[in-house]
C-alpha cells in the first residue's frame, strides 16, 4: 500500500505519517505536484488556519489534486484538509477551497459552550459509509477545531457540539474527516485502515 501525504506546511505531519506506517503503508511525503501523478492514494492532513491552504494554490498542488481526484485516486482529507474540499471557510473568506463539496465551512456559534471544540466526541455513522465500515454508532474520536462543515449530502458521520456538524463526508473516491483519526486510538486506526483498503 503506497500513500502520498501532502505537506503544505500546515502543522505537523509526523502523527499522520506514523499512523499510516504503523498500518503497513509505504508513505511518501511531498510538497510538489509531480508525485501526485503516480500516487496510489493521497492524504491531505492539516491543522491550524484555513489560510494555510493558499500554499496548495501557490505550489500547483491544487490542480494536481483535482486531476488525481478526477482520475479516481482515493483521497482522504483530515481537519483543514477536509474543509478545503468545500467552497471555502469564513476563517479565510478570500481563500477558495476546491469546491468538490459546494458548501461553506463556518465557525461554531459563540455562546455558553467553549470554542474551539477540543476533545473526544461521539459519532453518528451512516452505515453505508465505506470509510467508516465497522465503526459503531457512538464511537469516540478526537477533535480540535473551531470551524466545521455543514451537514449535506455526502455527510457520513455527524457529531454534535453546539449544533450537529459534518464529522465525515464522502463522495466517490473522495473521503474526509473533521476529527484526527491518527489521534483517535483503535477507532481512528480502523478508519485509516479502511481508507488504505478502498479499491
Amino acid at each position, binding site marked *: 500500500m503506497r500513500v502520498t501525504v501532502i505537506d503544505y506546511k500546515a502543522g505537523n505531519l509526523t*502523527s499522520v505519517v506514523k499512523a499510516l506506517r504503523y498500518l503497513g503503508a509505504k508513505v511518501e511525503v511531498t510538497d510538489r505536484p509531480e508525485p501526485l501523478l503516480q500516487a496510489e492514494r493521497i492524504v491531505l492532513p492539516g491543522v491550524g488556519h484555513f489560510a494555510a491552504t493558499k500554499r496548495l494554490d501557490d505550489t500547483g498542488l491544487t490542480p494536481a489534486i483535482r486531476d488525481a481526484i478526477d482520475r479516481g485516486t482515493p483521497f482522504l482529507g483530515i481537519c483543514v484538509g477536509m474543509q478545503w474540499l468545500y467552497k471555502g471557510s469564513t476563517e479565510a473568506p478570500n481563500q477558495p477551497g476546491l469546491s468538490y463539496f459546494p458548501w461553506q465551512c463556518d465557525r461554531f456559534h459563540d455562546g455558553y459552550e*467553549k470554542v*474551539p471544540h*477540543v*476533545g473526544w466526541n461521539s459519532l453518528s455513522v451512516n452505515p453505508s459509509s465505506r470509510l467508516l465500515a465497522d465503526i459503531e454508532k457512538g464511537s469516540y474520536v478526537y477533535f*480540535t477545531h473551531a470551524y466545521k462543515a455543514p451537514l449535506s449530502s455526502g455527510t457520513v458521520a455527524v457529531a454534535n457540539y453546539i449544533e450537529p456538524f459534518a464529522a465525515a463526508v464522502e463522495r466517490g473516491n473522495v473521503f474526509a474527516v473533521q476529527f484526527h483519526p491518527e*489521534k483517535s486510538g483503535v477507532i481512528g486506526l480502523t478508519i485509516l485502515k479502511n481508507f488504505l483498503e478502498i479499491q
Partner: protein
Amino acid sequence: MLTRRIIACLDCRDGRVVKGVQFVDLIDAGDPAALAHRHAQEGADEIVLLDITATHEGRATLLDTVRRTAQSLFVPFTVGGGIRTAADAEAVFEAGADKVSINSAALADPALIGQIGQSFGAQAVIVAIDARRNQGSPDPVRNAHVYTHGGRRDSGRSVIEWAREAESRGAGEILLTSMDSDGMRSGFDCELTAAVSSAVRIPVIASGGAGTVGHFAEVFAAGQADAALAASIFHFGVSSARALKRELAQAGIPVRLPC
C-alpha cells in the same frame, strides 16, 4: 457529546519516569514509552510527558524518549519541560509530540506562544500555569498569582489575567496547576479552576490535588474543568483510567467509554 478528558501525566528525568506510578506488575515500570502505551490502552484520553531534566545531555535523551513514546501512541501526546524557544518546540514536534506545554518560557517571552502557534497551530500550544491563591487579597481566588520555580517564586502576575493573555496570544489550552493543592490529595482547587475556566474560551486542564475519584467529579462539575490531569491515576483507589471513567460516568460526568 463532548466528553471530559482524563489525562495521564508522566514525570521524566533522564529518560525514565521518576514518580507517579506505583503498580509493580509492569515489565519496566520506569520506561515512559511502555507506561504511556499502557495508560492509553487502559483508557487515558491523552498522555502528557513532563521532562524535569535540567542538563543539556538530558535534552537529547528527551527527544529520544519522545520519539520512542510517540512511535505507537495513537492518542494526543503532549510534551513539556524545558521548552524555551520555537526551535525547542519544533524538535519535540518532529520527534512525534502533538502539543507542547510551555510555562516559564512563555511568562518570560509571551510572544513565544504565537511563534509556536504560527507554525504548528494554536491547538498545539498548551500554556501551563502554576498558581497559588493570594491569601493577602480580599479575593484570594480571583487574585491568585502565577508562580515559577516549582511554586517557590511569586511572579506577581494575576493568574486570570495571564490566562487571558495566553489565550489572546494564541494558546490552545491552559494547564492550570494549583500549587496549594498539589501533592495534598485533598481535591483540586475547584474555585480557582472555575474562575480561570470561565475567564477564557479555550479548554482548561485542571491539575494538582486529586486524591479520590470524587475529586475528579468535583473538578468537572463545580470546577468547570474541560480535562483533568493526574500524575498517577492509580493512587486514587482505582486500577486504571478506564475504572476511573466508569465511576465518573456513574456520577453523571460524560467520559469516553468504552475506551
